[in-house]
């Protein structure tokens, strides 16, 4: 699991995160929501070790994130961001194989080939394996990157959790792909050693797919916990300054603004 304790991050005198403490448990889909400028990306950057916080600690399992080396971290933790593009032409297979780079030095082994095949099949990218990445559509490209990050942590790590961090991975996708990806992500949760943390903008996606939600506002945690506890009319009104109507049909929450 990931435990974030008393994190404070500021640029100049402006605090981006203030005394943030949250926990992300394995086997659950943890989503971070909040309006623009709430500190979602900053929190993701801290968890993915791109930013070192001024105070506070982040622990992956029992070890402090700052004490885990780059190479050890890249074997257990994968990060997917939005809208990645390539500078040069490569085949889809080569792009997905990049996810295995932390695992081999010279040439990919049998295990690496297996991992990319399974990951590509899981995200329906296997048929595109020999195509030029640059000729793909936006949705197809993101499928390739989903496969790449999944390949990176495909095999369980002995005595350790695996971590998948999703930094607004759905931003440039249409509704069809958004739902398709979220369903696939939920399918991944069957692996009990997988800790998943993501940022999404769309509250309805969060309402439908999340287990646990952290609601951020102005660098602070407003509320965190089960989605029914977080997504209430009062909380959303306080943070987004809009009053939603909440419908529940067939056990799925819908927010209307």
């Amino acid at each position, binding site marked *: 699991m990931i435990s974030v304790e008393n994190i404070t991050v500021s640029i100049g005198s402006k605090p981006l995160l203030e005394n943030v403490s949250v926990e992300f448990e394995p086997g659950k889909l943890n989503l971070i929501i909040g309006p623009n400028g709430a500190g979602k990306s900053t929190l993701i950057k801290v968890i*993915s070790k*791109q930013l070192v916080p001024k105070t506070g600690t982040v622990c992956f399992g029992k070890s402090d994130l700052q004490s885990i080396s*780059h*190479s050890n*971290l*890249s*074997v257990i*933790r*994968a*990060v997917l*961001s939005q809208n*990645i*593009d*390539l*500078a*040069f*032409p*490569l*085949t889809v*297979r*080569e*792009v997905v194989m*990049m*996810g295995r*780079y*932390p695992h081999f030095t010279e040439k990919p082994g049998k295990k690496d080939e297996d991992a990319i095949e399974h990951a590509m099949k899981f995200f329906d990218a296997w048929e595109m*394996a*020999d195509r*030029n990445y*640059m*000729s793909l559509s936006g949705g197809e490209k993101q499928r390739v990157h989903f496969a790449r990050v999944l390949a*990176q942590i495909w095999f369980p790590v002995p005595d350790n959790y695996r971590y998948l961090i999703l930094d607004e991975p759905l931003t440039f996708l249409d509704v069809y792909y958004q739902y398709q990806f979220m369903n696939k992500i939920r399918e991944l949760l069957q692996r009990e050693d997988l800790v998943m943390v993501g940022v999404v903008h769309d509250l309805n996606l969060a309402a439908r797919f999340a287990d646990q939600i952290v609601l951020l506002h102005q660098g602070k945690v407003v509320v965190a916990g089960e989605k029914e506890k977080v997504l209430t009319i009062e909380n959303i009104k306080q943070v987004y300054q809009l009053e939603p109507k909440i419908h529940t049909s067939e056990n799925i929450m819908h927010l209307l603004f």
Partner: protein
Amino acid sequence: MNYLKSRHTLGLFVLLILLIVTFLLSLCFGAISISLHDIYDAVYKILTAPDQLSLVQRIFIDIRLPRAIACVVVGASLAGSGVLMQALFRNPIVEPGLIGTSSGAAFGASLYFVLGASLKFTASEWTLPIAACIGGVISTSLVFLLAKNKVHGKSSVTSLLLTGIAINAIFLSAVGFFSYLARDPQARSITFWNLGTLSGASWHSVAIMFISTTLCFLAARRYTKQLNALMMGEEEAFFIGVDIRKLKLIIMVINVILVAVATAFVGVISFVGLVVPHLLRLSFGSDNRFLLLASALLGGVLLTLADLVARLALAPAELPIGIVTALVGVPAFIVMLRKSNYYF
């Protein structure tokens, strides 16, 4: 085995054959022709009775052979450094000279031509290469120091490129100033050197270039995987375990050595570093693990051919090789770009 991998293997094999063929061609043809039999005989004699070599065989051993090897080594260095720079800057229009190395080397060389003439100091075989090498290292370090961001102490790719353009402009105008100052023979040397020539290749220079180039390639090979990761951007590369700062530093150092040493001995040769990696990308994709090796081979092939043309076109006079690489390389490149569906 997948389709691309076997294609890569085949590509390397074909390039190797091409290299051997062009190498033999460049041994045989020139101001005088040397037959394969002479070559065989010369190699045999050098091992058994070195004092019985005929004149033609002497020319082969002392001039033709080191020159042919120099072509391969310089072509390999320039093309390989093109691959490294394009990968590091994530930009297909980058060439080795872009971060100031070759203009600095040109500056060092022209300073030597002008000062050497007016101060009449005794110069050895090594003075020119050393002057060029120092010039190249100074200009590249300048680019680095000036491109560093004051706030976070890191240099972004854009600032490196822009600073490189500025430093190039300064050093090239200094070279222009020197050729304006210089009297006729020195001015001609400066011009000729700036267009590149392999006529000065000796066994000493070949040995140095060969050793430094080989070491650079061996070092660079270890980082090709990380350079691939960099194609997705620095953040993504970081997520798959690449230490970006270290990678940048190492690749820059390797590049400076490759370019400065090659430029120091043969002058400025343009377009090879830009064109060769592209020609390969067009049909083999951009996996740097393949590109680095293949570019070395193709760079060797193309520079050897260019040198042959330079020697034969106006024989017995010689064209500067830089003119040949530009005249032949650029149209071929444009045709290939227009023919292919190349995505940027």
